[in-house]
């Protein structure tokens, strides 16, 4: 049953790593603008955009 202690340590280490990742994410400002990245993702990157100006009025 002492294997429980090993498992306990492993689970705490793993959870601790996630906690550190979360703290890093907060400190680097990732939670300050949660809107713009979602828009940025949807815009496709293509450079032959000249043709796309159709008579849209």
């Amino acid at each position, binding site marked *: 049953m002492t294997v429980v202690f090993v498992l306990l340590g492993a689970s705490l280490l793993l959870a601790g790593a996630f906690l550190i990742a979360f703290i890093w994410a907060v*400190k680097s400002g990732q939670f*300050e*603008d949660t*809107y*713009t990245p979602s*828009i940025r993702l949807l*815009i496709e990157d293509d450079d032959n955009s000249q043709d796309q100006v159709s008579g849209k*009025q």
Partner: protein
Amino acid sequence: MTIISSTQSSELGHDHADPACFHCGEPCRDLVESDGKAFCCMGCQSVYHLLNQNQLGKYYSLDAAPGARPGESGRRDRFAYLDDPAVQEQVLDFHDGTHAIVTFRIPTMHCVACIWLLENLYKLEPAVSRSQVNFPRKELLIHFDESMMSLRQLVGFLSGIGYEPKLSLESLEKSRAVHPNRSLYIKLGVAGFCFANIMLLSFPGYFGLTHAQNPGFMRAFTWLSVALSLPVLFYGANDYLAAAIVAVRRRVVTIDLPIAIGIVALYAHSLFEILSESGAGYLDSFTGLIFFLLLGRIFQQKTYDALSFDRDYTSYFPVNVMRMSADGSEQSIPLNRLEVGDRMVVRHHELVPADAVLESEAAEIDYSFVTGESDPALRTAGDLVYAGGRHLGEAGTYRTVNPVSRSHLTQLWNNPIFEKAESRDLASLTNRMSKKFTIVVIATATVATTWWLRTDPAMALRVFASVLIIACPCALALAAPFTLGTAMRLFERRRCFVKNAAVVEALARVDTIVFDKTGTLTADKHAQVEWHGELTDADRGMVKALTRHSTHPLSVRLTDTLGALPAPRATTFNELPGLGLEATVDGHRLRVGSAAWTEAPDDALSPHPTVHVAIDGLWRGCAVLRAALRPGLPELVGQLKQKSRLCLLSGDTDRQATELRDLFGEDVEFRFQQSPQDKLAFVRQLQDEGRRVLMIGDGLNDAGALRQSDVGIAVSDDLSAFSPACDAILAGDQLPMLTRILAFSSTAMRIIVASFVISFLYNVIGIGVAVQGLLEPWIAAVLMPISSITVVSFTVLATRMLGHRHGFVVLKS
């Protein structure tokens, strides 16, 4: 005299005669055609060509007419002050001679295409290496090469493509604040981590493992739990503990005090059980509680990044001013370096930034935002012009007589009310409830403990801890943020943006409502025009031909109401400040403007602003422009009068008094020609009578009253524009919702009280049963977090359901 009355809202201005501009979507009054597309001005057309040449035409496929009209191109020198190293030091976030970083606020960004273009600036301008948008804050972060492009050139470039950065006096004086939620998020993360792990370690206990059966495991689990609970106590809960210590020092009772007592009692009792090996303690409940409390705090701290609730005149005033030196040359200098005696040049539609004497012959000054007076006032050479007025007409020269900070208007901010920190929190309902509550709890705990001390001293300590734990008003601490936070989100649906949760509480207690008139009850957008005289539609078309070239407020309003009429071409156009417009249209000599300018007969004079028309030297008629009341006001006033005392303050003259009397009835107090200081004093006087005042205003002149009142709501037709310091910002078209906002605030407070009662009963019954040993330990352990979840679900669901019934549904924009 024939009278034709027409009421027109701005939508009607977009008529079929004028196609919408391909770039900015505004109706094209002066049509410019290119590539088979219509543009409203040369500026829009040139931005279109610039983007197309640089393979950025995709801009127009991301959104229909995404652009903003570029700034006036003729006045590049207005950014000259940005060449001043001292100004650069304040504006730039970082610079080392080559690489520079700057953050601009750009109010005109509004859609997907804007984000895309602003983040692709490097394709347009080689000096820009990287640009990143924060859309909710309307901010643009730019990395650029200082040696290739100066800050002034960068601002000019952005302004040229329609994204002019907003640079105000405020942006120079204040440094950027770090996001307030950062530390709260980290605390929540830490508390969540510890809570989940302690819960895991407590599972054996839930299923009946005791010290007697397996001392090794139990000891390991409980001590690991103690280790994990320490960061929660000393880091996660430190706000509550620190606030409680402050409360004790100041000898006031806030909600934090009983919470802190409860937290400490729960923790101490758990430690005692663990040390004495008599049980596993309640560390899981303790960490869970802190986790939920922090979650409530984050939920309650709804912030509106694009809005600002604490603006003063510095964010309204320009950042630079054109100073005229002795030799007559103009020089752009930062406003804070303007000195008494300096001569400055103020151009059309710019703000006069300091009290000054007019040196030009004549100028019209629009004071609407500062005093509430809706008509521009004519000033002639030698007249004193107070700071904050907008200069209309051709550029004028002024001589400064007072420094900016000690001008007539800005003196309002020297009132002590603006220096005092907000002390409103102490009066909040939760704090008032906690005061009585804490006294009762401590009295009960003391009585019960003394009782048990006589019979069973060991039991006495348990009883003391139990009473404190049961009585911890954590339910209240949870119910309030979640209810108020939900209410804030519901208000937002109706474009009412509340500064913080305490404002909702304050709204529920309001019994007196003070209205400002200009801009609050009336709005230029709803101007009513009455035509007098013998003007045909063709004549009015000729009037439009003149007024559309003028930016005088009356001309703009008149042009809007004449939207659909075809207008012929005007030649030899001339505008004289204080008099009017003159031009030749279809061979006729047309004069539009004041009575003197058109030789109007005496019976055509009106107390309201009037635009007279003379054709070929003969007076032919006039248009009377009334500032119309916002729609829905009669119903609003009728509803509000049932519950509150109403008052009306206005900086304007009493010419609309009869109309307002019809609206408000005889029993409402009216005060006209009130200075900003008068308004502040009036609100204070009401408060001295023991009334809780809601002030509703819109301009800088209301700033003092908004600040002094218990709740100040600023009404704004353009939410991205300036609004004075206030507790809440309400969109102008949502003003009729005010009754429901007030009613729903009271409902929210009742929901808090209800959930508090529910949770208290729950705890009393639960612990009562547990003390008698009738409950399995694991059930007790699970029930405690469930009680928190119940309270939160109850308040959120009840608030949302009742909110829906009150009409707080999502608006289709």
